[in-house]
């Protein structure tokens, strides 16, 4: 079964009531726990936490958010950052990544490549340059 990874923009869109794509993004987030082929890179989770911090969520707020996210995204659906992922990310930085591809995008794409994903659930078209087909 081909594997899909989830980009941070999808989690943020699902949690942003001002985002016109939040309903579709919510479907993707709900599917993480319901389907066996959707995985969340650790870099996605880390970037989400930084987004929450960057947008003023305090410790109590983030505690509530992560308590709920823990139920939505089981640990078995998270992909770790491994030395192999870092190796792939470095390769991407040398070859495919441009200044527009962020550190986190590169790490997320590298996780997908390392674990055999064929696509990333994202609205970010840059992923195709990083070797992962973007789908939404």
């Amino acid at each position, binding site marked *: 079964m081909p594997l899909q990874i989830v980009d*941070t*923009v999808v989690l*943020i869109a*699902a*949690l*942003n*009531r*001002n*985002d016109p794509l*939040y309903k579709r993004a*919510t479907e993707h*987030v*709900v599917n993480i*726990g*319901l389907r066996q082929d959707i995985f969340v890179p650790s870099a996605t989770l880390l*970037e*989400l936490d*930084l*987004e*929450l*911090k*960057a*947008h*003023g*969520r305090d410790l109590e*707020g983030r505690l*509530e*958010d992560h308590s*709920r*996210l*823990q*139920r*939505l995204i*089981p*640990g*078995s659906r998270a992909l770790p950052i491994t030395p192999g992922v870092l190796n792939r990310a470095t390769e991407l930085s040398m070859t495919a990544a441009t200044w527009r591809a*962020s*550190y*986190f995008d590169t790490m997320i794409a590298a996780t997908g490549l390392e674990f055999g994903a064929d696509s990333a659930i994202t609205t*970010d078209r840059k992923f195709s340059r990083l070797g992962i087909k973007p789908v939404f």
Partner: protein
Amino acid sequence: MEPKAQRAGEEKPLKRAEAEKLVSEIRDQIGDAFKDHRDGDAEEYFFREIVPMKKVARRKRGGGSRAATNR
């Protein structure tokens, strides 16, 4: 013995309605925090707020980058 994740209830499968409710609850809690969200906010925050804080902490301990590396 049960794995830790199961003890915490983390791996208990949710029904679709339960999962949708959880997303909705987080969205309500967050409110308009992401209203002005732009791609790259997390990375900018990381290098603006977190990396400099570590440098300050190192300076306060009396070590430069080399001292921190050698620790």
